[in-house]
């Protein structure tokens, strides 16, 4: 890369790179509004990695979409998404276009569907550079980007179908990095990939974080991957964060029963507790239009007690630098 990514504008010293405040996302639907994100707040500092975990339908991808304002028309979004102190949700279209790519970029999971099949990959990366930053030296820059993600520069003249799944995912990462963003959102970037290729892509992302101080939000249902690559984890359920904290601790010693169930679904090889003992969570995630009262997880919760259906939960302290939305945690006002 031709140097450290430059800030779009001087950031105030104390403000985090990204600050999400009380974000709500609701989709219009025939049966009434469908709340997908119901009040999420989070902060991300420069160079930090945050893992966002949860099952499908928990709102994690809607949250990512809201950060870049990529949601379908008619979607109701409220709250604040402050990027370097500037609210993405109220930006004018011109400003938004400038911020996307240059400050904030996203990598999706379906690498095949995100690339234009009839255009050489180098052209696609070059187009992003030309539209958003500079006009000269573009092809040199394309070569640099490809090499940065571990592909030979000559691959620029390949069409997407000539590349393997892992190589295409690398091209998407190169594309996302084309305008030197400071924040990368990776939505299931490795789910469609093989174990070995997944390890290659994860190692690449880790390397980029270290070298360029790139902040990353990593979205996946695979808690074990998050524990390996992210410093912090936030677990979502039914549109809210239900547990957050340092990833190793959250994974090794979950405070929320939902996190516990999710973590148990990823067996530790060699651990006798998992041998011939697959573990999951009974039941399905609730209908967002008809959420259970009190803690929305209570109908599936193995640790539910009589107050759970009636006690509203919020993130309460659950140890140093940790919090969880469960009546059982130490910081809960109704701690049992």
């Amino acid at each position, binding site marked *: 890369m031709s140097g450290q990514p430059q800030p779009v504008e001087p950031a105030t010293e104390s403000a985090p790179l990204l600050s999400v405040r009380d974000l709500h996302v609701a989709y219009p639907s025939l049966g009434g509004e469908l709340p997908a994100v119901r009040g999420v707040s989070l902060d991300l500092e420069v160079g930090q990695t945050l893992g966002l975990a949860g*099952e*499908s339908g928990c709102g994690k991808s809607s949250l990512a979409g809201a950060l870049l304002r990529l949601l379908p028309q008619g979607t109701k979004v409220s709250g604040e998404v402050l990027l370097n102190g500037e609210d993405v949700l109220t930006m004018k279209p011109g400003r938004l276009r400038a911020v996307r790519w240059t400050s904030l970029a996203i990598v999706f999971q379906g690498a095949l569907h995100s690339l234009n099949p009839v255009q050489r990959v180098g052209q696609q990366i070059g187009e992003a550079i030309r539209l958003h930053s500079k006009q000269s030296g573009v092809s040199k820059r394309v070569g640099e980007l490809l090499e940065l993600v571990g592909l030979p520069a000559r691959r620029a003249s390949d069409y997407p179908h000539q590349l*393997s*799944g*892992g*190589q295409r995912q690398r091209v998407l990462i190169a594309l996302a990095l084309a305008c030197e963003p400071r924040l990368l959102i990776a939505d299931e970037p490795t789910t469609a990939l*093989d*174990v*070995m*290729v*997944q*390890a*290659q892509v*994860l*190692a690449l992302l880790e390397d980029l974080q270290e070298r360029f101080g790139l902040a990353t939000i990593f979205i996946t*249902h*695979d*808690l*074990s*991957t998050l*524990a*390996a*690559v992210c410093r912090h984890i936030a677990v979502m359920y039914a549109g809210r964060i239900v547990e957050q904290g340092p990833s*190793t601790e959250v*994974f*090794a010693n979950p405070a929320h029963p939902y996190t516990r*169930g*999710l973590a*148990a*679904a*990823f*067996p*530790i*090889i*060699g651990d006798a507790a*998992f*041998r*011939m*003992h*697959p*573990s*999951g*969570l*009974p039941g*399905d995630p609730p209908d967002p239009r008809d959420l259970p009262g009190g803690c929305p997880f209570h109908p599936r919760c193995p640790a539910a007690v009589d107050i759970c259906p009636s006690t509203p939960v919020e993130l309460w302290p659950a140890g140093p630098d940790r919090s969880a939305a469960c009546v059982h945690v130490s910081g809960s006002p109704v701690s049992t």
Partner: protein
Amino acid sequence: MSPASLLEVRDLHVEFPTRHGLARAVDGVNLRMGSGEILALVGESGCGKTTLARTIAGLQLPNAGEVLVRGKPLTHGRRALREHRRTAQLIFQDPTGALNARQTIYEAVAEGVRIQKVPGDEEQLVAEALGRAGLRPPERFFTRYPYELSGGQRQRVIIAGAMVLNPGLLVADEPVSSLDASVRGEILGLMLTLARETEIGILVVTHDLGLAWNIADRVAVMYLGRIVEAGTTEDILISPKHPYTQALLSVVPEIEQVEQRILTGEAPDPARIPSGCRFHPRCPLVESGEAARLGIEERCRNDDPLMLPACHAVAPPAAVAMESR
């Protein structure tokens, strides 16, 4: 392994013509499994595991070699195939794609009963199969459509549709990889119960080693069309001998990371299988000079290891080669 094994694969070869020549997707595979056993076939994409599974299920014609179910060789005549497909049922990764969106759950399960002309009361058979797959009470699901069910429930319908034929062998290709983490455990638990209670043998094709640890009795590791290591799940996953198995295990994301051995590149091209040990161009032992120090580098490059584990660094020369199974 029981002498009367449920499934036996003998020196199986499956080839496909490609622009770059013949791709040897399955290149001499030997495999055995017994009733009630769960065998996990693991490997990267492109290693030939899905082709092997499809050939075992009778969906793909082999170029050479034999598939025997309960000692009976699989032939590809029309009637023999229909018979075979009743004994060996295949389950795919994506339950949504495998179900007809305009068919009720009852119809989806009853279809196989009709095609195979299973004797007995159809409604009772369907109800039993749904119940066994954990969809209870089964009658509640009869008139429902796939879109009304969750992903996990759909996969249960697929399993019910397979189990209704009372097969001896279930071939499941990545049965949980499209499902959510919480549902995954439920489906795996169901497969484990089925194997224990009905004596069905289950061949699970997967790239997920955690899944193997969860439910498999034995593991076979496949690389470029060949089984390179096989044994009990404990042996293979706790003390792997083959450098490829070791590399696969080292990249399983866990908190206490062992030193990762990330192999460069993706699984190479089955149309250009390297000479000697097919793994040698990616092998950490060759790359680090360890093979040279052991004095086996020449053999790694030139001799195809036909024993198991298929590694010159592991097997004492000649001795093990006899039992190439």
